[in-house]
């Protein structure tokens, strides 16, 4: 399991690649943490409308220093702003948007993703862990397209892309595409399929660090 750590893309580049695959005017929910970076890389000419599970559509960036409002926060409990055209609503209406299929894209982190698109990102299942799920299962059950932003392997070099998740699932068969530091990988009916390699990374290096078969990119899709 422990192969040499490869660099590939950094987090910002992964976020930028992910942002590039989101259509103009999409309603987007960004998971807490690294997925939030996606908002910094909206391609020119496009606009995303951000949904925050705690009751805000049209979420804007962090406020200017000194303009924090403790009652205007995002799902990660960080201060945000409201863009023109925003609306506030309660948790019932907010998760009705999620559950009802009204959010176009959700970007989440991952502990593991299986070759059939199962996502595990909420619990290691360790007996002493405090279980905490938040809105992750609502998002995976309700949002049309789930993108995953993740390092390709754990800090210890263990694979996160696996045949079958060993951690408890967040949702079965929900992930569409993974943006890792090494590659962009699609979930297809046949399993993991390479979409694009990070610069300087080889197919074999990615395959070695993936605990399930990896299909090469379709000829017209490999932008290496």
């Amino acid at each position, binding site marked *: 399991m422990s192969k040499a750590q490869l660099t590939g893309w950094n987090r910002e580049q992964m976020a930028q690649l992910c942002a590039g695959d989101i259509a103009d005017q999409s309603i987007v929910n960004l998971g807490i943490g690294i997925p939030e970076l996606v908002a910094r890389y909206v391609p020119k000419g496009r606009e995303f409308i951000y949904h*925050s*599970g*705690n*009751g*805000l559509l049209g979420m804007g960036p962090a406020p200017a220093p000194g303009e924090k*409002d*403790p*009652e*205007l*926060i*995002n799902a990660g*409990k960080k201060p945000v702003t*409201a863009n023109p055209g925003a609306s*506030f*609503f*309660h*948790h*019932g209406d*907010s*998760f*009705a948007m*999620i*559950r009802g299929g009204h959010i176009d894209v959700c970007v989440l982190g991952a502990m593991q993703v299986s070759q059939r698109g*199962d996502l595990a990102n909420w619990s290691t299942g360790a007996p*002493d862990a*405090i*279980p*905490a*799920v*938040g*809105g*992750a*299962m*609502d998002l995976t*059950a*309700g949002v049309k397209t789930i993108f995953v932003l993740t390092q390709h392997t754990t800090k210890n070099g263990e694979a996160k892309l696996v045949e079958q998740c060993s951690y*408890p*699932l*967040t*949702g*079965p*068969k929900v992930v569409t595409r993974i943006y890792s530091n090494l590659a962009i990988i699609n979930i297809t009916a046949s399993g993991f399929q390479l979409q694009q390699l990070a610069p300087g990374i080889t197919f074999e290096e990615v395959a070695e660090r993936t605990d399930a078969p990896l299909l090469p990119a379709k000829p017209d899709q490999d932008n290496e």
Partner: protein
Amino acid sequence: MMNKQVSSTELAVADICDGATVMIGGFGEAGSPTELIHALIDQGARDLTIINNNTGNGEIGLAALIGNHQVAKMICPYPRSSHSKVFPKLYRAGEIELELVPQGTLAERIRAGGAGIAAFYTATTVGTVLAKGKEVRTIKGRDYVLEYALKADVALIKCEQADRSGNLIYNKTARNFNPLMCTAATTTIVQARKVVAIGALDPEQVITPNIFVDQIVEVQEPLIDAELIARGRCYP
């Protein structure tokens, strides 16, 4: 119309019984009725079941209520956070029970409780350990889990403005679970930053109609949780 305003948080929470199920509004500190929670600590009711998105931060508010051993059980989607120390300790010691519920399912179960919907089918948790032991039914080709309504004896709520009859409006993302919880509790107790005359709120803008509110107390300058935590403050 009846004036539901009472003069203090102490009076407002006086009748909460041992063993009560208490919904507490707020998401993080936005919309968290910290003064009412502190009054409940002073009041001392025990063996409470608390429904909240989190388990509090630092040693104030909900965390302090838990730390004071008044809470037997949490129903909660996210019982840990960077500043949450009290709950993890008691949970690992087996001194507090946890029912983990996804955030959206929690919101919908509370809404169902208020709306007379006994149970509903949702796709959330299908195929996960949180669906274990629950009925799963295929409807139009997709699997759904049966979830039951959630009600409470008491709801502790924070709002921005209340008229004396109990119509409420909220501030930005401080709305969160508050309007739902108002509908699902036998007794709804509200702390409002400002109490105004009946008729002062535009009927179009009322978020919680007064039918759902029992007691209102004005707390003009509510504590700011983050500041207390930053200063390492404890309650009491």
